[in-house]
């Protein structure tokens, strides 16, 4: 089993008939994902990739029972698409779209508050549960069913760590990309919490990078919850040159957090094994599991 998706998860795709959506939906179908419908306003009643197209999320949910949606809507309409999914009370939204105005995401977060919906992304590669299904745009060639959960801020490093965990003979239970935008849905620490509660996950790999304070939140979570499984983290950008800054508000909101050194120290204090070498993450997890 996996987190967030099961073999029975029925999925719709918002923005279904676009070029990128068509390409990735075809791949998802061939991977065995239960994609059952598409949503494109004004194109209801048509058929695409042999699947029915609906005008609204509510209509697609009503007709097919799909409770998850993969969103491929262009940035100027993506927030409205997410809010439509939240108002239709879907369980899960995965938004791939890049370059959404951040104040639109503030509105989406307000809509998520108190709703039953979980949002992954935006600017996320999505969720992959090897052998079960794929809601996203990641490559699946190196993925194998296994018992390692990967919670990540970086799509490229997720591909890398998927390969490493497969090479190490471990495989993956689920990989989740929380998305690269400053304001997004599911946090890195919420993803880690799902893996902590997942009986099918024996070890958790957290992929972080400089900026923001999500890794610090993971550390804070692990201070309050003793982890019964090994957690290995990679924090990319240890040697990155400092960025130019505008004013003081950024530092004042995060309390000076955000550097790789600060994140690594927080994670190690919380009992996380931090891999310094990005090429040894899978190996580090294998050694941790053998202990």
């Amino acid at each position, binding site marked *: 089993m996996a987190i967030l998706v099961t073999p029975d998860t029925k999925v719709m795709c918002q923005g279904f008939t676009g070029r990128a959506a068509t390409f990735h939906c075809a791949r998802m179908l061939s991977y065995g994902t239960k994609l059952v419908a598409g949503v494109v306003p004004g194109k209801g009643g048509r058929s695409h990739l042999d699947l029915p197209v609906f005008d609204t999320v509510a209509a697609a949910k009503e007709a097919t029972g799909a409770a998850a949606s993969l969103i491929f809507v262009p940035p100027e309409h993506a927030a409205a698409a997410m809010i439509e999914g939240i108002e239709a009370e879907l369980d899960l939204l995965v938004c791939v779209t890049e370059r959404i105005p951040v104040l639109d995401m503030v509105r989406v977060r307000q809509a998520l508050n108190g709703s039953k919906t979980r949002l992954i992304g935006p600017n996320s590669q999505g969720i992959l549960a090897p052998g079960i299904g794929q809601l996203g745009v990641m490559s699946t060639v190196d993925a194998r069913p296994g018992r390692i959960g990967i919670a990540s801020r970086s799509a490229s490093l997720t591909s890398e760590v998927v*390969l490493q965990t497969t090479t190490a003979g471990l495989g993956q239970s689920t990989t989740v990309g929380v998305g690269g935008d400053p304001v997004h849905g599911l946090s890195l620490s919420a993803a880690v919490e799902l893996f902590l509660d997942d009986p099918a996950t024996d070890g958790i790999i957290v992929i972080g990078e400089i900026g923001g304070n999500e890794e610090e939140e993971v550390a804070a979570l692990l201070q309050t919850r003793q982890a019964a499984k090994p957690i290995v983290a990679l924090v990319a*950008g240890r040697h990155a*040159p400092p*960025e130019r800054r505008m004013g*003081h508000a950024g530092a004042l909101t995060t309390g000076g957090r955000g550097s790789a050194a600060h994140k690594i120290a927080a994670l190690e204090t919380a009992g996380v094994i931090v891999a310094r070498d990005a*090429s040894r993450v899978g190996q580090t997890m294998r050694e941790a599991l053998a202990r």
Partner: protein
Amino acid sequence: MDLHEHQAKRLLAAYGLPVPIGEVATSVDRAGQAARRLGCSEFVVKAQVLAGDRKAGGGIRFASTPAEVEDAARKLLGSRLVTRQTGARGADVSAVHVEERITVARNLYVAITLDKLSGTIVMLASAKGGDDIEERAADGDTIIARLPLRIEGTRIVGNFEAFAARIAGEERLAAGLATVLGNLAAAFLGCDATLIEINPLAVTDRGRLCALDAKVTIDDNALFRRADLADLKTHNVDVAADASEREAQSFQINYMKLEGEIGCVVNGAGLALATHDLVVDAGGRPANFMDIRTTASSLDIAKGLGLLLQNRSVRSLLVNVHGGGMQRCDTIAEGIGIAMRRAGRSLPIVIRMAGNNARFAETVLRNNGVVYTSVDDMAEAARIAVEAARQEAA
């Protein structure tokens, strides 16, 4: 996109925020003319660069006459200003803002920005503003008050009156401050800003509020619906970016030039950061940061690599590519092939490819006549690239 102070002040004035009278000038003569038109008794001449802490860096100068304004402009224009916020490279000063010098009774701090983790808009304010606010906040000397805000329809709502009363201390000032805060919120939403910081927000000797400085950052992702601001984009060149960095953007490549010898070719920001770490750990210095976006074609990649190969400090190339669902290894291999044919120079190339179409990419490289060392492990690849650069230099 960051705005220059003079642009920020004009923008804020349009939202009813009080700013000093002033004019921007790009030459010494024009600075003098501006001073004569303004006719103030005291002036401030401020270097227009996109970073803070200008005062400590010598970028703010005071003057009493138009002739002194010209002297100050002469010292600033064409100089390179280094402050704690510019990075070591500093920022070129191509314009100054000549403005009225305000007599200050006390300085406040106000800002509106995003609290990324909670996904909310937050207003920050302090009864004591100034350049050293971060240090004072860290030491616990200065309290930064926070007001979380909500978007409702086309407005940002929050209890600005109560918040202003907390900061102002005195009743007379509180009413004016509440108006300023309300206008600040309106400007934030109206401009799709991610940051507006007024530091200091001065209380003048006459008890009026005045924004002595303003830092505004506009969300690039929202420029499609802010046509008036999008026009500024062409003028507001990133202080740190050189021409090749801006050119790379048009090839779907995030590229940042650095001081080292190892040219790095990577797809994905996270993998690029990790590759940078591996090169430094191996004792090398990256010549650049490169993140080839998923939308880049092989021709884009060839042009981006061309920029890197023009840099004569580059002594070896490290290619670390992980083919994903959207960007396959063979596309990047083709780009490398084209770039090397055009480059007119040969240098050691170490290539590590994994993921989608990694094996096919090796065939593409060979068919293009690229001579390279193939390595499976990326840490090993970094070590070999660093060693190759060392031998080239010797």
